[in-house]
């Protein structure tokens, strides 16, 4: 294998891992409190939300990769697939919270919505940490889906076209590296996060440093495997 291709695989896997980590920090993760409507976000953990979004992203990216060799097109299709998935999930969560629980989508971490300047604090139920998916959180979640899907699709492209894996191997390999990075981000978040306006978002550099190390090692593993196989599979 050419050295340029080797470096390209490692670089793309590292960029994908870093984007996975960043994307996980932007998602509205509500966890168990959100299941009771007492916290902002979707009522499950970071891993499940990120995995669902990226799986969809990988499906769209894989479909596009069957008829296109363009890196930008494959990566963007993955990003759009993940964004659509996360948007549908957030929208349905809002419908359930508003019409099912009867709570207003409201942020618990800021008093005024940073984007629309809508007041948040007067509508918040006392003793809770917000409800549903308000505007700023929705925008942040879409950004998280886009960035996460982009990262997953970049890894898929590197494994498929540069390392020469088959489509199935490339997809499961990309998903595995993605999952490892998303989980490290989840440990950094510790429970719930609302998005870029959340104070916990400032912890991002720690997760990025760990993700860099882990995805660098995973990239080297992929390069070794691809070199040994000589692009046979």
């Amino acid at each position: 294998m050419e050295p340029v291709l080797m470096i390209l695989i490692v670089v793309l896997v590292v960029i994908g891992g870093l984007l996975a980590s960043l994307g996980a920090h932007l998602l509205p993760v509500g966890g168990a409190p959100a299941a009771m409507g007492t916290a902002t976000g979707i009522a499950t953990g970071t891993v499940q939300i990120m995995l669902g979004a990226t799986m969809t992203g990988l499906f769209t990216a894989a479909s596009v990769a069957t008829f296109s060799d363009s890196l930008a097109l494959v990566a963007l299709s993955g990003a759009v697939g993940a964004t659509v998935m996360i948007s549908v999930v957030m929208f349905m969560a809002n419908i359930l919270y508003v019409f099912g629980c009867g709570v207003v989508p409201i942020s618990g971490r800021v008093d005024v919505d940073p984007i629309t300047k809508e007041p948040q604090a007067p509508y918040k139920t006392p003793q809770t940490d917000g409800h549903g998916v308000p505007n700023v959180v929705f925008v942040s979640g879409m950004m998280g889906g886009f960035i996460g899907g982009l990262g997953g699709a970049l890894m898929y492209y590197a494994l498929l076209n540069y390392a020469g894996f088959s489509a199935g191997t490339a997809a499961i390999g990309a998903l595995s590296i993605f999952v490892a990075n998303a989980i490290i981000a989840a440990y950094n978040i510790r429970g719930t996060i609302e998005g870029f306006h959340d104070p916990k978002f400032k912890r991002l550099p720690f997760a990025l440093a760990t993700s860099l190390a882990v995805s660098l090692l995973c990239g080297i593993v992929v390069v070794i495997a691809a070199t040994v196989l000589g692009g046979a599979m």
Partner: protein
Amino acid sequence: MTVTPAVVEEEAPTKKGLNFTFPLEETEMGIVAGIIAAVITIYTGFPAVIKGVGLILAFLWGMDSVHKTSKYGLGTGVPSIGVLAIGYGVIGTVMGLALAEYGRIGQLYPAVLVGVLVMGVIGLVSGTMSNHEKLIAMKIPHLERAMMELGMAGTLIILLECSIVTGSLNFGAVVTNVMNTGLIALMFIFSCFAILHPYNACLGPDERRERTRMVAVEIGGLVCVLLGLALVVLGTSPYGILDGVSLIVFGVAVWVVFFRMFIKACMDEAYSTVGTGLIKTIE
């Protein structure tokens, strides 16, 4: 102010002794399961049932690691660390399978263990960084060791499953039979559940390691049934269709025995139980 006398507690009802005691400590279990599973992994000539035993041992090892890490509270739920283990497992499997042809003697593939060791190193790095005070600072005792063991156990699990389904550890055969058929997705999620579900379902103040392990063995049985079905459908076993059928029978037997044992242990150890009619009372 009068001091109220200490309440004389009612004597707890005598518990029936458990008939399932696995006498191994966590470290011993890791060593024993690791060595046995590794030996079964590198020699692919074993019948599927023996590989199934190795698979269940690897599941027990992974479950133990999840157990000792998650009891301190991860903050994101137990499932995350189980998914992490299998995620590392898939990467290690790709690495191990790529190197499999080196030093191959007949059906003996010792080089696949390089993948296991490499994932141990990556697990150690991620565990160290996750626990480091200046980085993620999770402050979980022995997280480094647990993540290392999870990487190794996850790789052994996926390698063993590939070995069961394809009957060899040839990269081409695995890609054709496991990756391109989509079976890897089923393997991924079912192995995740075998590792994460036991502790996730049993956690709480009265959690007991012996009881939790029964669930791991039980799910191992169900995974064996699934792999047996795949083996029958793909028809890749050198021993013919009997290999797959025997794995299904083995899986069903393991599931029945350990599910019964688990329900019985729960009923014996609970202060009192109320039947919902969903599960027939075993008496």
